[in-house]
């Protein structure tokens, strides 16, 4: 039987230190993973940024020197669309599990992502003017932690799988840090979330895929790669 107080204290302190070390290891691993996530997302966003810039320059060149503008545009759009979907999903999984210390990183990434989407939206509009209406565009405004918005997101994912020429761009309706969101809300007369703007038509509240499909104009003419 053990009666020595110092010995008991030694065991107590040793156990406490080991426990703290385990928790610190968990926290360190979590932070490392968070940083890794943030960095890899940042890299993707930067890459997307660069692609969008390169695309804009390419468009100017083709318009200036001549070439098959619409074919090149198609490839670019497909590429950008894929990147936007992947980045959006990664950002949402990162956002669901980030820690307080990475709040600013997340905010920066989110803002960058919305700007990328806005730039893409603008490109699509320019493309429509030059090459005609090849793509269906759904601009989706959601609210965080809102069940209806979540359901709408899944419904739009499903639609996107069935309509390869449908491009979905999602924006957090309440994200006030980026003034551009306010501009989009006002432009599309969006007052509540979820709302989906399909080819310019604003649908407020949860919209069933069947309702959205009515406004898709290029159901058969799927051209994206």
């Amino acid at each position, binding site marked *: 039987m053990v009666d020595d107080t110092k010995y008991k204290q030694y065991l107590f302190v040793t156990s406490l230190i080991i426990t703290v070390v*385990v928790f610190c290891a968990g926290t360190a691993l979590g932070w490392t993973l968070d940083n890794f996530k943030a960095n890899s997302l940042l890299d993707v966003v930067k890459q997307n940024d660069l692609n969008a810039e390169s695309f804009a320059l390419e468009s100017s060149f083709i318009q200036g020197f001549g070439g098959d503008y619409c074919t090149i545009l198609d490839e670019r759009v497909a590429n950008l669309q894929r990147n936007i979907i992947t980045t959006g999903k990664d950002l949402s999984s990162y956002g669901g599990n980030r820690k307080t210390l990475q709040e600013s990183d997340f905010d920066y990434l989110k803002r960058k992502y919305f700007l990328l989407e806005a730039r893409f939206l603008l490109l699509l509009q320019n493309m429509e003017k030059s090459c005609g209406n090849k793509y269906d565009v759904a601009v989706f405004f959601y609210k965080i932690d809102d069940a209806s918005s*979540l359901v709408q997101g*899944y419904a739009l994912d*499903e639609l996107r799988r069935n309509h390869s020429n449908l491009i979905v761009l999602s924006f957090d309706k309440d994200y006030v840090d980026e003034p551009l969101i306010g501009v989009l809300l006002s432009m599309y007369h969006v007052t509540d979330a979820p709302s989906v703007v399909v080819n310019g038509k604003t649908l407020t509240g949860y919209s069933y895929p069947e309702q959205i499909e009515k406004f898709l104009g290029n159901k058969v003419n799927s051209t994206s790669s």
Partner: protein
Amino acid sequence: MLEILVYVVSFVSLFLAIFWISVLFFEGKKIDENLPDSNYVPTVTMLIPAYNEAETIGSTLKSLLAMNYPKDKLDIIVVANNCIDDTADEVRKIESDNIKLIEVSFDKSKIVNCKAHAQNLALPYAKGELVTVMDADAIVQENALKLIVPIFQDENIGLVASSVKIKDPKSLLEKLQWFEFLSATFIRRLMASFSVLFMTSGAFNVYRKSALEMVGGFDNTTLTEDLDIALHLLQNFKKVQSNLDAVIHVRGMKSFKSFHAQRVRWNRGFFAAMLKYKDMIFNKRYGFLGQFMIPIFFAVPILLVGAVSSIMYSLAANLYKGLAILTEAGRYFMNTPTSLQQSVWTTNMQMLVPTIFLILCGSFILFNAHKYLKETPKYPIAGLLFLTVYQFVLSAYWLVALCYELFGAKKIWRYEQRW
């Protein structure tokens, strides 16, 4: 808030697990050592309170008579308390001069703990220097008493607990209790090696009679007289010990109803005991027991109540949300693929690492419980459930018990319930 609570509970649980592993590491060689035979052979009274135990009392008495303790030093008292079955007849059937039957009858509606009351009624008839209080369904290993008695050579020992195992578990619930009793017995032994044991099983405890008399016997106003008496003895600076090789087999709770009643009673009794002996908490006079063990054992259920309430609220909210999503967009949701990368990214590593470590520590303790209690590994599924789901169920019972206490549910053992 939920996250903080879960962190705190995980931290304390992990700390306790690591602490017991450290104790095992340093004290491993000593914990299953038995004191050698000596000339110390005191008289022992085996006291068995029985309420409608006709089915089991015969086997229990036979196991006592088969013990290798000198018969002239042993007397057995069965207190048949308000029995309406053949308990008394079953006792009379066993012909032995060592057995004495006391039939008592009292108004049970006025007494919270009838078992403690019956024990107190029989105590004056106990002639032994040591008094063993045991359950009427316990089967005692033949050398159990012989292994325990030498520990009482230390004059300060007031109580020695035995190793309690579940007999022949059949159902999953019984198997889970088998694991629980095994690990609890082992942890109790580790606590005893550190002189901080204050929770014993009431199935087979040996007391020094003078110590029992000093504290005025058992408290029949509490739901857990075994916990109460251990704390009472410790409060009076008596020591509590245990022995791993003195093995007793008891029946597990077969139905969820009886399991539920037992757990609520244990946990309510624990809260009441902590409040009753609150002067021991953080009291330097009680050394490591008062400064560390009792406070941490008191804090854990309170933290668990908070954590379980928050988790349940969160689960209910998410379930509601999940159902709404599935109802509205079930097929889209199911069709949405989730990549491995996303799964990793959404994992809370800060919580996952300590949780994995905690499960590993729990497995290590359970493995050693098997080793020291000479059990071969069995029931793998029940073992896995014991380390995971069952812990949550046990935690939830703290919340249930607290609700019973707060809403003033009457403290009484159900008449139809076994001790």
